């Protein structure tokens, strides 16, 4: 079964204070589809004045919103989930068009996961409780969580609606108003969501600002009327946002990417069974979402005594991946999200070759026919080399796997941790001791054990080292969007006696 490019309006505006409004400067930018480089629509090219308006709307709404009951807020979050679910296909199709990822992913992963994140945070705020402690017979300490107020969120283009749904529900559940800036490469599903849920929240509680980083992102991240900034992206912008936050003494959370190791111990090949089949797929997951995942398992570490046999199957499985029209439900690998990503990835494959890495499969752009010839496709590529090479150290953000071998546990851990980053890692083994000890030794915020690329709402996710700080998903994320009010109550009628 196949789909085709969905219908769009000619242009889309910002969503501020409960309605769609044209950008103050009257400018729009053109958004194109990486599938065939065709025009999708024009989107608001916001400036500082638009950001000011959104921040003012959010500040006007925050007191009333912060005082709504969790019952009311949970009901609204559930309503959003129901609305996305009722329009799942429409969201999936638009996401595929805007990002280039295959429709099988948006139908079965992006959108269903996004829905679940709204439901998860609707659920946890109903069950959560504060704390009260009797410090002595006459003194009670009560901790109440209060919202921060207005939260700015800047999200990337690799999972547009899902990243929105990672960031918005916990901030709203915690009682904050939100101003979110989607990436300019993928503004479509955030806009569609606002169209569908325009009446769910009171005006000013959710706001969407479109535009470019230097023109709209920077004024938002540095705005005095914002109480917190949450960012997913790269290190230099992360550093700048922290700088701006330091001027406002605001908290920030940062998710800044990785170069995640995926480690296969020899016991995975003890049997030729369903588990080995799962492990092979686990190694090929580097090509999932065209490698445009901050936790992309882009470094494959294989124990030397199974290396040849294991790689033979990994290469065969990689070659079997269908790269074709992203609107076709059978397609497994789609288009890279933009021309500059496409160029960057090819340039990395080139430097890998120059550094002496051996191309085991792929290694080139993928030329598709018809309109797709104008799109940005790259063959899933496996490069064999060593961990000091740049293709082992830098995030390529494409379907490029760098593979090397290791002798024993100590060497596996040493290679795994020899990176600036620490976001994700995978460990595959049938050995019960390794199942626990190796993940504990890896410096990364998420270690998948005998699985990879699972992102349930109630498992915390975030980085060590240069991958950032703070966690997303899970109940604990709520605390990144709240502060603690401590009420210290004395029931003692007697004075201190100092004065």
């Amino acid at each position: 079964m196949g789909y085709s490019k969905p219908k769009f309006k000619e242009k889309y505006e910002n969503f501020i204070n409960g309605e769609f409004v044209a950008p103050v400067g009257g400018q729009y930018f053109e958004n194109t589809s990486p599938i065939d480089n065709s025009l999708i629509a024009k989107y608001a090219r916001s400036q500082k004045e638009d950001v000011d308006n959104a921040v003012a709307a959010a500040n006007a709404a925050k007191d009333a919103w912060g005082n709504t009951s969790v019952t009311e807020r949970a009901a609204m979050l559930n309503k959003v989930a129901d609305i996305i679910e009722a329009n799942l296909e429409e969201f999936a199709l638009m996401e595929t068009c805007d990002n280039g990822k295959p429709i099988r992913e948006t139908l079965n992963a992006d959108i269903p996961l996004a829905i679940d994140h709204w439901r998860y945070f609707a659920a946890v705020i109903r069950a959560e409780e504060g704390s009260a402690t009797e410090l002595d017979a006459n003194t009670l300490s009560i901790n109440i969580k209060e919202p921060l107020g207005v939260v700015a969120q800047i999200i990337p283009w690799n999972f547009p609606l899902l990243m929105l749904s990672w960031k918005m529900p916990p901030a709203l559940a915690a009682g904050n108003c939100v101003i979110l800036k989607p990436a300019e490469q993928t503004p479509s599903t955030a806009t569609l969501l606002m169209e569908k849920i325009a009446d769910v929240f009171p005006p000013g509680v959710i706001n969407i600002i479109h535009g470019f980083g230097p023109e709209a992102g920077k004024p938002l991240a540095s705005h005095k009327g914002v109480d917190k900034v949450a960012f997913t992206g790269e290190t230099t912008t992360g550093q700048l946002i922290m700088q701006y936050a330091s001027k406002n003494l605001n908290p920030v959370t940062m998710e800044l990417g990785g170069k995640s190791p995926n480690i296969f111990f020899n016991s995975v090949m003890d049997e030729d069974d369903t588990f080995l089949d799962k492990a092979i797929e686990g190694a090929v997951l580097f090509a999932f979402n065209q490698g445009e995942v901050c936790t992309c398992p882009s470094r494959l570490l294989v124990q030397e005594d199974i290396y040849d046999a294991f790689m033979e199957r990994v290469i065969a499985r990689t070659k079997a991946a269908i790269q074709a029209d992203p609107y076709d439900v059978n397609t497994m690998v789609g288009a890279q999200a933009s021309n500059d990503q496409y160029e960057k990835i090819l340039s990395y494959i080139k430097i890998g070759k120059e550094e002496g890495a051996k191309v085991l499969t792929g290694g080139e752009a993928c030329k598709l026919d018809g309109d797709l010839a104008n799109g940005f496709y790259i063959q899933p590529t496996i490069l064999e080399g060593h961990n000091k090479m740049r293709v082992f150290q830098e995030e390529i953000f494409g379907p490029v796997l760098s593979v090397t071998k290791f002798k024993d546990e100590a060497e596996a851990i040493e290679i795994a941790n020899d990176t600036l980053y620490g976001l994700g890692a995978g460990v595959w083994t049938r050995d019960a001791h390794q199942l626990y000890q190796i993940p504990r030794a890896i410096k990364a915020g998420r270690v998948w054990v005998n699985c990879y690329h699972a992102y349930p709402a109630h498992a915390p996710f975030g980085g060590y080292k240069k991958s950032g700080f703070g966690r997303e998903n899970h109940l604990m994320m709520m605390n990144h969007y709240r502060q603690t009010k401590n009420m210290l109550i004395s029931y003692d009628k007697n004075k201190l006696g100092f004065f």
Partner: protein
Amino acid sequence: MEYKRVAITEKAIEILNQLKEKHGDLIFHQSGGCCDGTAPMVFEKGEMYLDDSDILVGQLEDVNYYMNEDQFEYWKYSHITIDVVEGRGSSFSLEIPLGVRFIIHSRLLTDEENKALNTC
């Protein structure tokens, strides 16, 4: 002969000059990590807090090109050419509103370059 780690294409110089006219003095900072990372980003001079951990890798048309020392460890054997392509980034880099994006082409340093640049 003087060896350099960084070069810039004519096309990229044109964009850089346009940005200089609008914004004044500029710097490049090499980003790492997710999404739009691993790209050279251009900012107004003074916009970004720099210290000893930012290595001055080269100078392009009076614009300093910096990289964090951790990243430089892996890049010191590479020769970098800054170029520009059509595209969109979602960072704060100043060229993005022009509908173009600075990117990097790299190659390994030759033996002579490596000897001159990496031994002291």
